[in-house]
């Protein structure tokens, strides 16, 4: 056990720091407020710049344009990005989930065709997984694809699609064998979002914004060379995408959470409670300290998980504890903010008295989604029960 950075890790960090120092834009906060179309163009060009420096997908193998970074180096990468408050990358799903899935399951032709444009943000990707009747029970999905000559004909509907409005391509899970047991009849298709018959609609969420879309497919033709992995083996392909989603995402959140608790501690000196500052209220002090500690434990869990995972970089079912931990912790953090801010906690962006521009009322609502998106807390606990502890399946 040695938690000091080794020579290679230090070199990686120093090189990244120097690069960020020279290239990371400082004007992102101004752009963040602009309409999504404009700010997204900004994020695209930022990702292109990162790719030019070979920093867009550090976890990817060198031969595909990454740096074959170890998990520890990946953790360093996200910490450094957060430290300088770097903008996010436009093609988040392409880089984090879909690219790695294509690298793991794709044909040489598919890799050659798709990988470079994922890196450069020339083609933005979305994920077509959930459906109105297939959420937690993803394998029961009904969007169907039937082979007609050299094309699959796709019909159906997807929901909760991030980046749907701007995506060029979609990793789409479809049913290709309706007669087979539900996990055995699925296939993953790589679908051009400009194909005739694809319709994208915004989905308005409880925060008032539309981060997500609904996708409709009506007789959409997809050439059969766009099958990712084997026909009817789509469940395994989809699962590897979900594992990437659960395993590494927590690493990016630590600094964000840290910044939030630091800000809450700062605010605790400004807000009054029972005639003294909230910082000196015995109950709120305890809650802030608890939250502070749990944020540190989240970091340590992540580092320990990274040390366990082999060099393949494919996280196992243990990733589920990270997902449960960060999502539920984030809700507790927002609840503490609400308790401290009292009536001010409900004020939203645009109100002149809103604290920090309304981020706390937004965060309070947005974090309700954390324990639902990317696999509900219930599903994560099922995964731990069955795959980690070896308890019999409940369904």
């Amino acid at each position, binding site marked *: 056990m040695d938690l000091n950075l080794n020579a290679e890790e230090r070199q990686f960090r120093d090189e990244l720091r120097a690069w960020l120092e020279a290239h990371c834009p400082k004007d992102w906060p101004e752009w963040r407020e602009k309409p999504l179309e404009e700010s997204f163009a900004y994020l695209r060009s930022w990702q292109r710049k990162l790719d030019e420096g070979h920093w867009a997908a550090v976890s990817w193998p060198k031969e595909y344009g990454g740096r074959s970074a170890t998990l520890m180096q990946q953790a360093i990468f996200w910490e450094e990005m957060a430290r300088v408050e770097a903008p996010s990358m436009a093609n988040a799903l392409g880089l984090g989930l879909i690219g790695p899935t294509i690298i793991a399951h794709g044909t040489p032709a598919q890799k050659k065709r798709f990988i470079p444009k994922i890196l450069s943000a020339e083609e933005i990707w979305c994920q077509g997984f959930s459906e109105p009747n297939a959420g937690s029970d993803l394998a029961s999905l009904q969007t169907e694809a039937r082979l007609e000559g050299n094309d699959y004909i796709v019909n159906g509907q997807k929901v909760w699609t991030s980046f749907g409005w701007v995506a060029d391509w979609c990793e789409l899970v479809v049913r290709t064998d309706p007669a087979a047991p539900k996990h055995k009849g699925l296939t993953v298709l790589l679908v051009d979002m400009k194909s005739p018959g694809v319709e994208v609609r915004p989905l308005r969420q409880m925060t008032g914004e539309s981060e997500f879309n609904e996708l409709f497919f009506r007789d959409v033709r997809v050439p059969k060379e766009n099958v990712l992995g084997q026909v009817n083996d789509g469940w395994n392909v989809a699962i590897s995408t979900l594992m990437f989603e659960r395993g590494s995402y927590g690493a990016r959140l630590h600094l964000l959470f840290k910044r939030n608790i630091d800000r809450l501690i700062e605010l605790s*000196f400004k807000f009054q409670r029972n005639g003294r500052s909230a910082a000196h209220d015995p109950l709120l002090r*305890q809650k802030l*300290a608890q939250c502070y500690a749990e944020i*540190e434990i989240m970091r340590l*869990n992540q580092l320990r998980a990274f040390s366990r995972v082999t060099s393949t970089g494919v996280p196992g079912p243990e990733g589920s504890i990270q997902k449960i931990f960060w999502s539920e912790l984030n809700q507790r953090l927002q609840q503490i903010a609400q308790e401290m801010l009292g009536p001010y906690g409900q004020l939203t962006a645009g109100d002149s008295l809103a604290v920090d521009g309304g981020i706390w009322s937004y965060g309070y609502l947005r974090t309700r989604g954390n324990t639902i998106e990317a696999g509900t807390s219930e599903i994560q606990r099922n995964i731990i*029960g069955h795959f980690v502890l070896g*308890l019999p399946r409940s369904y």
Partner: protein
Amino acid sequence: MEFGLSESQRLLQDNARKFFQGECPMEEVRRLMETETAYDETLWAKMAELGYTGITFPEEYGGVGLGKVELILLMEEAGRALLPGPLFSTVALAGAAIDAVASTEQKKRYLAKISSGEARATLAMLEGNASWDLGELRVLTANDRLTGEKLFVPDAKVADFIVVVARNGVFLADSKAPGISIHAMKAMDLTRKMYSVRFTNTPVERLGSVTNLPGALDTAAAAVVAEMVGGMQRTLDITVEYAKMRKQFGKPIGMYQAVQHQCADMYLETESARSAVYYAAWALDESAPDAAMAVSIAKMYASDVARRVGNRGIQVHGGMGFTWENDIHLYYKRAKASETALGDSTYHRERIARLAIDARAASSQSA
């Protein structure tokens, strides 16, 4: 950066696990807990032979010279086995205190005896107000004589010497010295006996000032958390085993999500406490600036989740979990004793608050 164990650390862990499984299975734990002191001389001698009693003490004092990470790996296995007797009291409490505050000559004398297995020891700190704050201690010595009472002293009856934390310093009393009377306190945990120790004009030897004691108490806190993690792991293991085997409505109860989710939470809480204490031990070894914070985070978290893991384990066991026959209550009672030892979660949250909140106010005022 490597958060996993090294080859030699893994070996130590494996050996300790096998040793405790072989030498101190649950039948032996149950036999010892019914004895007056829960202490077994033969078992102690074997542990000393393996170097467990001197694991972290410098070689010049007869110890093995390993680090805090090795100490907590050993304590985790001891906790998993629910090891009765004074290993924790001797090594992590008294030994760590001597190592932190005593003179070279005193360390040579006392740590060598501990390391060789010749002597057992404990630490007497809490008084009637049961506060772990050094500033709230009342007992003090005059002319190297001590009068007063200490409570909740683990394993005092088998200790050859007792390290006493007083208002004016850290002292050592021979347990056979005049004026000492030791009485059992009847606590829940039968595997680690607690005592009140009354001193009446007892001659004591000064070891040093309390200035360096907090570091030793942090080591002890990390050690107790490691024991708790071992206990949580064992509680989880026997609970999962039971959930697979016990059938109701024609199916193993572990198939029902209400049961699975209890087990999943036990797993999450156990692993999180383990991450916290491994880091704390490493931070202590490295004298990292956040070592005290890391220890408080670990003790705060473990103090709450060890109880919670026990609650869940008992609940999943149903009626069986409420019996004397099932082992789970033994772990549950140890967890309760460990929860309050060296500060419970409320105490450590306050310490975290001082470091994270008050320190900020101080730095912003000076800026």
